[in-house]
C-alpha cells in the first residue's frame, strides 16, 4: 500500500503521462468524459460517473479497421495498426472495470477481436473506490464491491490522500515506474473508508433488486411477457442508454469514401435503432417494443446464458440518470422481476 497527497496528483499524472498515454476523466464544457491527459486539461475525479463509460478507451466509439484503395480495378487493403504502445486509464470505477470483463467475454472469446485484445493487453487500469455512491448505483446487485475495485491498481481517496495498491503484474509495473512519488501507507484508513462505502451502499434504494427470475430457463416466459408492451411505451428509440452503457458492445461496420479510397470503420451501434436489423428483404424487429425487449433480454437473459450466469449489466446507473424518458433497466428488472 502506497500513499500520495492529493495536491501532488498532477505530478503523478505527469510522471505517468511521461512514459505512456494517460486517459482520465476530464471536465470539458460542463461534462466529464475520459480523455487524454495534457497539462492544460481540467482533471475531474469528483464526478462519480463520467457520461460515457471508460469502455471508450478499449472499444472506441469508432475506429478504422482498414483502408482500401481501388486503382484501375485492383484493390489493395491496408489494415489499421493495432495498439502497440502501453497506456494507462486512471479513475475507472468498480462497475466500469466489471464492464470490461463483460466485454472481454465477447471480444476475447474465440475468434478473438485483435483490435480490442491489443488495447486490453497494453492498457493498465487504475480504478478508484467510490467515495460517495449515488442513488442510481446498484452494482451490489451484481456482486460488485465498489469499495474494492478489482483492476490492475486499486486506489482510495481518504481525506487529503490517495492510497494506491497494485493488484496485478501490470499494476506492479506501473507502480514501480512512479514509486518515487509515493510514501508508504498503512491499511487502517483504507479499511475504515471501505466500511463506510459498504455501509452507504447498503442504504441505496436500488441495492437490493431481485434478479432471481432472470434465468435462461425462463427465456420464453420472459420473452412472451405482456409487460413489455406496457414498458416500452415511453421509449423514444434513441441510443442514449446503449452509448453510455459500459457493457453494450454491438457495433456496426460502415464504409466512408474519402474521395481517394474507402475507409472501413466500425462504430457503436444501438439495438434501439430501427435499422439495426434491417436487411435487403425486410426487418425482423419491426416495432420498438421488439427492439426494447431485445436490449433487456440480452442483458438479463441471453448474455448470462452464454457466460455462466454473468449479467451484462454492472449497475453503474448511467442509463438511470441519462434516459430522456426516465426509462431504465431498473424499472424493467422491478417490473419483470415482480417487484412493481
Amino acid at each position, binding site marked *: 500500500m502506497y500513499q500520495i497527497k492529493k495536491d501532488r496528483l498532477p505530478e503523478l499524472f505527469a510522471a505517468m503521462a511521461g512514459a505512456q498515454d494517460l486517459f482520465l476523466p476530464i471536465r470539458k464544457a460542463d461534462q466529464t468524459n475520459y480523455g487524454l491527459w495534457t497539462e492544460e486539461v481540467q482533471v475531474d475525479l469528483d464526478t462519480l460517473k463520467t457520461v460515457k463509460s471508460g469502455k471508450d478507451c478499449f472499444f472506441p466509439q469508432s475506429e478504422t479497421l482498414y*483502408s482500401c484503395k481501388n486503382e484501375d480495378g485492383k484493390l489493395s487493403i491496408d489494415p489499421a495498426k493495432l495498439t502497440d504502445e502501453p497506456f494507462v486509464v486512471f479513475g475507472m470505477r468498480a462497475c466500469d472495470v466489471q464492464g470490461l470483463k463483460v466485454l472481454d467475454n465477447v471480444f476475447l472469446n474465440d475468434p478473438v477481436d485483435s483490435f480490442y485484445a491489443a488495447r486490453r493487453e497494453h492498457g493498465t487500469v487504475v480504478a478508484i473506490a467510490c467515495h460517495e455512491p449515488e442513488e442510481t448505483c446498484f452494482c451490489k446487485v451484481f456482486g460488485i464491491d465498489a469499495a474494492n475495485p478489482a483492476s490492475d491498481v486499486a486506489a482510495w481517496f481518504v481525506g487529503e490522500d490517495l492510497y494506491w495498491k497494485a493488484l496485478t503484474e501490470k499494476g506492479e509495473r506501473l507502480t514501480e515506474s512512479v514509486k518515487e512519488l509515493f510514501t508508504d501507507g498503512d491499511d487502517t484508513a483504507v479499511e475504515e473508508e471501505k466500511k463506510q462505502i459498504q455501509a452507504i451502499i447498503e442504504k441505496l434504494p436500488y441495492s437490493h433488486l431481485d434478479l432471481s427470475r432472470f434465468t435462461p430457463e425462463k427465456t420464453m416466459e420472459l420473452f412472451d411477457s405482456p409487460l413489455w408492451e406496457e414498458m416500452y411505451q415511453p421509449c423514444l428509440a434513441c441510443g442514449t442508454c446503449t452509448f453510455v452503457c459500459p457493457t453494450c458492445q454491438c457495433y456496426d461496420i460502415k464504409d*466512408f469514401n*474519402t*474521395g*481517394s*479510397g474507402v*475507409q472501413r470503420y466500425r462504430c457503436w451501434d444501438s439495438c434501439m435503432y430501427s435499422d439495426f436489423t434491417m436487411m435487403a428483404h425486410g426487418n425482423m424487429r419491426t416495432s420498438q417494443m421488439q427492439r426494447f425487449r431485445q436490449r433487456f433480454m440480452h442483458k438479463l437473459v441471453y448474455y448470462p446464458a452464454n457466460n455462466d450466469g454473468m449479467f451484462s449489466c454492472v449497475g453503474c446507473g448511467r442509463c438511470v440518470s441519462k434516459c430522456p424518458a426516465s426509462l431504465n433497466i431498473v424499472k424493467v428488472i422491478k417490473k419483470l422481476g415482480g417487484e412493481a
Partner: protein
Amino acid sequence: MQVEKTQVFRPKIVAFCCNWCSYAGADLAGSSRLAYPADVKIIRVPCSCRVNPMFILRAFQRGADGVILCGCHPGDCHYTTGNYYARRRMTLLFSMLDYLGVENGRTRVEWVSAAEGVKFSTTMNEFVAKIHSLGENVRLGDLRCKND
C-alpha cells in the same frame, strides 16, 4: 511515386449553377473568352433551390475551400419562385455557418443571368481572390478526407 507538394495554395471552389441562367452565363463567359480561374468546379443543378444545405456542407467536408451558388435573378426563375426559396435558405444557412465560427467569406450567392458572361467571370475572379485571402478551409472539413 512521391510528388513534391507545392507550397502555393490552390483553392478548391465549388460553384452550383442553375441550369437556366447561370450555367448558360458560364457558357457565355467561356465562349466570350472571359477568363476565370480553373479552380472553380461547376456543378449544374436544375434550379438554385435544388441546392440543399447538405450539398454545401458536403462540399466543405470533401475539401472545398469555398462554395458559391449562382441562380437566376429574383423574378426570373425558370420555375417562377425557386430562387426566392433558395435565397431564404442560403441566408439562414450562411448566417448559421458564420455563427459556428466559419469564415463568412467562404460562401456566397450571386444571381447571374444567361446574358451575364462578364458578371460570371468577374464574380468568380472576385470569389477566388477572396478565398485566396482566407486561405485553406480548416474549420469545416473532414480529417479523413484530408489525411487520405
